[in-house]
């Protein structure tokens, strides 16, 4: 059984960079526990049976020449969705106090 505690949910939310209301913590505790119970169907699987598959194409190390290409994007266009910019760069809250 993977019953999550309130503390588990609060810790998960912090790791996920999500603020939650106390109602949400309660709601998610039940819902997430239910989902984790469901995926426990895999518990009986024997790990020796097969190797894990992380991707299905079989492609490996797809390389391209390390050349600068002009896709025609303008910095101004790429920054237009940012909440704050300065001198052609993203502006964020100060990181070092």
């Amino acid at each position, binding site marked *: 059984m993977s019953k999550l505690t309130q503390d588990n*949910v609060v810790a*998960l*939310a912090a*790791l*996920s*960079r*999500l*603020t*939650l209301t106390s109602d*949400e913590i309660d*709601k*998610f505790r039940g*819902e*997430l526990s*239910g*989902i*984790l119970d*469901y*995926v*426990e*169907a*895999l*518990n009986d*699987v024997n*790990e020796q*049976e*097969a*190797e*894990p*598959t*992380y*991707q*299905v*194409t079989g*492609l490996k190390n*797809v390389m*391209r020449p390390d050349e600068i290409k002009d*896709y025609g*994007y303008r910095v101004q*266009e*790429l920054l*237009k*969705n*940012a*909440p*704050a910019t300065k001198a052609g760069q*993203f502006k*964020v*809250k*100060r*990181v070092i106090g």
Partner: protein
Amino acid sequence: MGQWLAIADIAKKIQAGELKAKALVEQALAAVEDKSEYDAIISTTSERALRKAAKIDERVAGGHKVGRLAGVPFIAKDNFLTLGGKTTAASNILRPFEAPYQATAIERLEAEGAICVAKANLDAFAHGSSTENSDWFTTKNPYDKTRVPGGSSGGSAAAVALDIVPFALGTDTGGSIRLPAAFCGVVGYKPTYGLVSRSGVVAMASSTDVIGPLARSVEDAALVLDCMAGRDELDSTTIERNPKGYDIRNSKFQIPNSKVGIIKEYMDEGLEPGVKVAVNAAIDKLRAAGTQLSEISLPSLPLALAVYYIICPAEVSSNLSRYDGQRFGYHDIHAKNLDDSYCLSRFNGFGAEAKRRIMIGTYVLSSGYYEAYYKKAQIVRTKIINEFREAFKRFDFLIGPTAPNTAFKIGERAHDPLKMYLSDIMTVAANISGNPAINLPAGTSNNLPVGLQIIAPTGADRSLLNMARHFEGLGS
């Protein structure tokens, strides 16, 4: 029936000057307006569309050659980056977002003359099976307005079923093209993983996300796929095209000798009686036309959904970490410091389902749980792939229902995430394994469409489309 000719015929008539691209775009935009009560559409890109149409008409008038999709209006799910309007993924966090560039799939369709006229509704970030997780509104099923259209590409499926456009684009991560296609009675095609570039499409679960068409006929879907498929340097997971391409209009494929396996696990309990009757009737029709059918068991398939609900949230939690409120998307102005700004922007920007998946994903990837969940899921994924491979040694195709039921009522599953997840029980396996799969309309049950699913070996997209057209040709 329907206001649109076959896509290839529209393009021919445009080239011949018998139809005008501008008139077709206006016709599609009028249909968007006319069918607005179904809430299939989030926004239109009318200005850009009319400009593109005028250019095509000018080229034709000037005696120049135009593309294979010239003048054909289409609708893209709103998780495709498009110019000339907003791209929201039906999420609050992207409410103001205007894409600075377009998805490769859109670019390739435009290069052949197709014209994007509108953006379709979806479950926010494509998380869902009904469009009820959309932060805008729930799309109504064209067959019964009290029911869901399926999801997550529900707006795209409804738009095609409502005849607003000849085709629409969707994305399929766990069934998001095939399920709404089944619920709305249209063709929905999920290609082999990697066949269509994901560049410029809002990422959900990168190892299973694919892009595909929803259309009224297999030939239409095949032509659209043909125009999008193949390697793209902007997506390093893309694979080579079949040298013959995917346009099957003139192909002469021998179907009657095909061997088709009926997936036992999908025909067992849990299947709505009306769906079972319709799928069995489809099987009988194929048999009568000379296809050899017999039952096959793939014993790990019932685990596919559990595998999916580990892999998908894991990848979602990683892909959605980019929504931090600093570079694009919703930004909360009340934060005191940077970390606060991330947390508040995400708290106010993401809906419940995105939060749920981010937290499940964070949980299964966290140290101490990684081996128990994520790694185990990837081992079962290998088992599912191996079972498909074994099955395809005996059979050319596998067949079964697309969903265990027809479209459910709006609200019926919205408050139980696990019950909603079960909608994908018959579609997820092909996403986990990467195999191509298609939904084909196969009659109705209580006046609601039933979907038949055909799955093919990895890379056998062309054969699958041929087989699908064969079935379609048997009539209802």
